[in-house]
């Protein structure tokens, strides 16, 4: 029972937080609005992590010297 009360109290406080009015904002132009939007947008850190892994797998291709190529030294 106690637990239920606690949950109810918590959900009420969440509702209160959401119902707080937000300040009105005014943007002079679409450029300014989009700049604000861009500034609010967070870059997901997963991209950098994925990129590190992918770039790490990108070992430079083995370069075959022209002498080896010329004399057919690439065959096993």
């Amino acid at each position, binding site marked *: 029972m106690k637990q239920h009360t606690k949950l109810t109290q918590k959900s009420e406080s969440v509702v209160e937080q959401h119902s707080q009015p937000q300040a009105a904002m005014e943007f002079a132009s*679409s*450029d300014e609005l989009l700049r604000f939007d861009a*500034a*609010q947008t967070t870059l*997901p850190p997963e991209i950098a992590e994925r*990129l590190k892994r992918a770039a790490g797998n990108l070992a430079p291709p083995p370069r075959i010297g022209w002498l080896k190529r010329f004399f057919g030294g690439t065959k096993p």
Partner: protein
Amino acid sequence: MNEPVERESVTGKTPAGGLASGFAAIYDEHSHAIFYLALRYLGDPEKAQDATHDVFLKAFRKLDQFRGDASVRTWLYRIAINHCQNLCQSWHNRNVHSNADDSIWENSAAKTDSPLRVLETKELGQRIQKSLDSLSDEYRLLLLLVADEELSYEEIATLVGQTADAVRGKLHRARKAFAAHFEKTV
């Protein structure tokens, strides 16, 4: 004007863990701009994440081909625009848009010099996305590029393959169309 939000270095203090330090610096400086373009151009956070990853991976592979006759940011935007446009073409999931649709909004009552009022910032992103999605790909791209203060009209013109004057004219119409759509999304 809002102060730009300071962003932490996503690659941390030791960026060389997989990425060359020079490239990590490029990523730190430009990744947010590229991600934002992809996010609002494609309209999907997951696709934007994939696109940003792919763009920087392409740039990483082609770094030795970068000749330096454009800024790094412009070069990255070029890769990003091509990538996003290819994705849009291959998905065929976006409605075909003609400029005739845009003209309806260009001629509407909305003016570019009238302020855009926002009461609820929590749904602002959705409203912006809806408004951008309603525009043609060309208008959407122009608005996103001009929102980046680091790009000049000349650089934008080069990126979209038009003259600076043509870009100015189209931007005027794009802003008007955007404002009309945005007012409608209230």
